[in-house]
């Protein structure tokens, strides 16, 4: 059966999988935790550390509770998909590979105006930053393109290139629809709305109105404590998962509007400390082995 990425959301994803698989990537599955961006996936964050080559592509569902609109906004969702590609070290032809992937899913760069517009990326939470662009297609931002320079407060040695495609946006563009819920999901007429509209309504309501804030505060404290517990036991990956958990709980508390402006900075600092602490522990655990295998490398 032939694929048609211009008529089917899932075919677009499968086309990207084929493309990046053919270009040497592991095709991973989504991380099974709630997170605000694909960058949180350990395949990005933790694997960006250290000297070992790493090429992976995966879809990551992202949750941004404050972006929920009860299914009433044609563009904004509290749950959506990102397509992440991470290539370490960044290959010299990364831009060309990326542009080729756009052609694969049906964007003709001689008909559409593709532009690389400066947009540096920074995540204080992860102690990370990089330089790159947002990629525009006819004025619409379709991808974030970043060369990681630091992660968890450590220099990236070597630098990884990260691509984050906004899948719904790209699909809306390619399919020519103005409302995300009108996307053809499977090319056979099942709409994105049929799959996700009710989910958006209920989750928006829960995020904004229902979630028990006392329980969320409690869970935040527990995640923070568990992160430290895991660090003490030298299992940094487990610690990092708790940092992801704490980060999402913080986002939920934000959506519930129970964190004041003053408290906000303090919560963010806590999450940052958990994430950085986990990265540091991960580095500490791995670095002797890396240094042995890669003599030119040093932490």
């Amino acid at each position, binding site marked *: 059966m032939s694929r048609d990425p211009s008529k089917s959301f899932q075919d677009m994803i499968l086309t990207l999988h084929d493309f990046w698989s053919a270009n040497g990537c592991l095709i991973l599955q989504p991380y099974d935790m709630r997170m605000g961006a694909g960058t949180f996936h350990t395949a990005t964050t933790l694997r960006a550390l250290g000297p070992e080559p790493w090429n992976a592509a995966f879809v990551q569902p992202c949750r941004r509770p404050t972006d929920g609109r009860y299914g009433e906004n044609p563009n904004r969702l509290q749950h959506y998909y990102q397509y992440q590609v991470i290539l370490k070290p960044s290959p010299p032809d990364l831009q060309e590979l990326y542009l080729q992937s756009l052609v694969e899913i049906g964007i003709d760069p001689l008909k559409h105006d593709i532009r690389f517009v400066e947009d540096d990326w920074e995540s204080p939470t992860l102690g990370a930053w990089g330089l790159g662009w947002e990629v525009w297609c006819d*004025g619409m931002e379709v991808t974030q393109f970043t060369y990681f320079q630091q992660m968890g407060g450590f220099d990236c*040695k*070597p630098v990884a290139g990260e691509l984050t495609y906004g899948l719904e946006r790209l699909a809306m563009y390619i399919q020519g629809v103005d409302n995300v819920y009108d996307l053809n999901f499977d090319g056979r007429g099942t709409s994105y709305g049929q799959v996700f509209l009710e989910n958006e309504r209920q989750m928006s309501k829960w995020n904004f109105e229902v979630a028990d804030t006392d329980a969320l505060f409690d869970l935040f404290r527990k995640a923070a404590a568990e992160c430290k517990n895991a660090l003490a036991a030298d299992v940094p990956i487990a610690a990092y998962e708790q940092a992801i958990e704490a980060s999402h709980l913080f986002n939920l508390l934000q959506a519930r509007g129970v964190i004041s402006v003053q408290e906000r900075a303090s919560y963010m600092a806590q999450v940052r400390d958990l994430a950085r602490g986990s990265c540091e522990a991960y580095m500490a655990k791995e670095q002797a082995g890396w240094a042995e295998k*890669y003599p030119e490398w040093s932490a």
Partner: protein
Amino acid sequence: MSAADFLLELRCEEIPARMQAGARADLERLFRAEMGAAGVAVGEVTVWSTPRRLALIARGLPEATEAVSEDAKGPPEGAPDAAIDGFCKKNGVTRDQLELRDVKGRNTWFAVIDKPGRATRDLLTEAIPAIVRAFPWPKSMRWGAASLSTQSIRWVRPLSGIVAILGDSLVECEIGGVASGYATRGHRFHCPGEVTIGGASDYAEKLRACHVIVDHAERQDLIRERAAKAASEAGLSLVEDEGLVIENAGLTEWPVPLLGRFDEAYLDVPPEVIQLTARTNQKYFVCNSADGKLANAFVCTANIEAADGGAAIVDGNRKVLAARLSDARFFWEQDRKTSLADHAKKLERITFHEKLGTVADKVDRVSKLARWLVEEGIVKGADADQAEQAARLAKADLVTEMVGEFPELQGLMGGYYARAEGLPAAVADAIRDHYKPVGQGDKVPTAPVTVVVSLADKLDTISTFFFVGEFPTGSKDPFALRRAAISLIRLIVSNGVRLNLPLAILSPILHLSIQVIGRHYEGTIVSLKGAFETLGIDASEGELSDDYLTEVTNEDWIRAAVFEPSSRSAGQVLDFIADRLKVQQREAGVRHDLIDAVFALGGEDDLVRLLARVHALQEFMGTEDGANLLAGYKRAANILKKENHTLVTPAEAGVHQASGADREMDSRLRGNGENGTIPRTGDEDPMADVDDPQMRAVYAARSQEKSALSYTPETDEKALIEALDAAGPRAAAAVEAEDFAAAMAALATLRAPIDRFFDSVTVNDPDPPKRTARLDLLARFRDAVHRVADFSRIEG
């Protein structure tokens, strides 16, 4: 020697548009520096940039540097062998190559070092990597496999190619794994393959054939013309925007401006919002219709000559803009569902500054100050209720959706919302413009209600930040207090606002204290008037209205916790404003010494009056009378200083009462020293105290007494006495009436008498009474001049 043109192209992934102009300048500078150091004469240099390349063409480089021969002087004949061997080693010669020469009668060893000329091509081979490594990008990065080490090369984005050709031959070099060659690449999509360049002469044209206009200025011209043409073809006129022209030229190698339309229904949204959305988010130009109103059209700049003529591109961009405008319209509609007064309630939840409370607290202080400024008649022509209302609503738009999305629209949106809910035009305008003047070129508001709110807002900001110790230091000014002070000065000066600054500065500070204390001790009351009295500030000059004055707590505690620090920081604020005023006046071309001469008088808390005096003095010093009077003044001052002659000291007079807070406050605008006191350098004028109001009576009595002479004065002595008798009161009266030109004119009448006095009268007479009387006369002369300005500060 023959000359050749040199071409350098550094190709990389997309360079941020905003960095390209700086990069061009840096490339030329570094190239000239490297070549200069190598001894290569560089003439004309052209630099170009596109998003994907920096290019430099240097015309007529010599093919080699000239050979030079240098003599190095060594040790004298007969020096120890070790010394001579060391000299040989240092200069890379052998002993038998040394020559003996006579230096002042002594035989000395010399080495002649021949430095052969070097091929420019070889020098370039070394210079190019040096330029790349030294390139000062605002932000740079590492990339690729080489970045395993942090020592790897850094560039703004990954460096992908180097073309370096001198004449028609390759300059071989290599940086971070990228080797130079003849090949570059054309347009990313139109001509993705390699293009072989012959040299500087065919570079631009070969690239043009590959859909790259390498000259940024040409791309800018093209965008300017074609965007305007696209608009005019649609019967519209382009809203010119040079920043967008440059930015779009920095984002494209083959710019193609295209006009698109958006749904007319969006024109309900204020035009500034549409323009801002189009500009900042999408980098589009907007257009006006024939009637001068914003049209439902945009011009985007594509980077390709699209197969379909750009139809798909325009359609895509239209959709993106529509989504943005739909958001903007949603905000516009949502925001208007709530009145500004209700929006303003939410300000209670926003921290203005950790120590300064919420934005609502600030609004409360500003509102009270605004009402006071009107009720005291300080700003004329404003309605007190309107001023207070405008101040209460001025910050309400900060919590609207629109300003949340576009912070640049603060003020402007508040003005729109105020008008939409039917508030008076003066209130709406004041809300809109109360941040003004923002920059140097920004117009200063003149509408009375706007002036009041803007003044009150800035006074509050500056005073309260100083009070909590957040003042600018060195290059750090996180709360932009310097800018606020300049805006405050401009508001006061251009509107001629007569304001007792110490009082106006103190009022937000005290009000802040009341808010803070009030929060802790609710229900206890103290009067602000008492506070002013405690501080020794004469609040009767501007009678304070009662509701502004009532409130808060226990006197002793307040005094220790609030009033003393308030007084201290009010002093700091005055010094700060005085400093800014000096800087501002200097920039406006006023001589700094004249500013100092007036500031040094002290006792001035009114900027308008102070500047009127400075400007009159500047005018006067430009006249012959002014210059001559200054010469006379300096002569008199020197004699008095030499003779150490004083009329009477304040201590002797016994009138110098405890230095009250008001005296300390008054001295602030002297702009000297930390505590507002004049530093005792020994050069200061003992007569400086004549302007002290508390000393006036003493000097008057002293002058009277001195007017009865024990001898018959000489003609020119008598003439000077008479001139002083006439000019002194005239100058004083003119100063009192704030007619500083007349005060200067009165001084001018002293010029001829003082000149003649010095010509014919001997001050240092052997007869002690005569000598004392004449010194006193000179002191009186100086006193009279000092009533107008401290001439000792004037240069010349």
